[in-house]
């Protein structure tokens, strides 16, 4: 079974039942990384999102709006998230080989290698250093624009 490793932009669309049609073929598995998921949670926790959601839910307390966001952001079982337990050594090895990526990129590349997955990035999240490092290691990267 093939696996697509999605960034936070695409993950949010999946969580909001708006998965891009071109993201995966039938039966393909979904995965993401801890830091993409962390970025998603931080972004959704922005005061502007919480405030808007509070108003849209009838001026509910912002703590409740925040809890709603947390409930929507819960990763479904079908989305795999590989632990650093399985990635940390490879991330360090990538650095020792001279790879110049930040932690987010290192985790994504190591996770894709671990899962034999294709990395899928939203068009607005194109990451040339990650693409170059992935290409050098025969990891596929696809930009999703629909």
């Amino acid at each position: 079974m093939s696996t697509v490793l999605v960034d936070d932009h695409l993950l949010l669309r999946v969580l909001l039942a708006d998965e891009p049609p071109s993201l995966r073929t039938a039966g393909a598995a979904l995965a993401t990384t801890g830091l993409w998921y962390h970025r998603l949670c931080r972004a959704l926790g922005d005061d502007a999102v919480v405030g808007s959601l509070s108003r849209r839910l009838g001026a509910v307390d912002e703590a409740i709006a925040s809890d709603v966001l947390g409930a929507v952001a819960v990763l479904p079982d079908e989305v795999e998230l590989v632990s650093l337990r399985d990635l940390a050594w490879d991330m360090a090895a990538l650095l020792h080989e001279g790879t110049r990526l930040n932690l987010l990129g290192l985790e994504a590349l190591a996770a894709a290698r671990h899962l034999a997955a294709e990395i899928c990035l939203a068009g607005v999240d194109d990451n040339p250093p990650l693409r170059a490092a992935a290409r050098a290691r025969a990891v596929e990267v696809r930009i999703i624009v629909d």
Partner: protein
Amino acid sequence: MEVADLGHALIIVPAEGGGLRSVVRSAVVDAGGYAGLAAAVAAADPDLA
């Protein structure tokens, strides 16, 4: 209707038009869109860029 049980509160929204997920999607748009929100996080933390 869609009901979300938060444990200490029940959120009830019309199911028509996408329910709770649609409301969250609209809140993200109101806040400037997800791209801008993620960019702000990345600007604050280069390891998330």
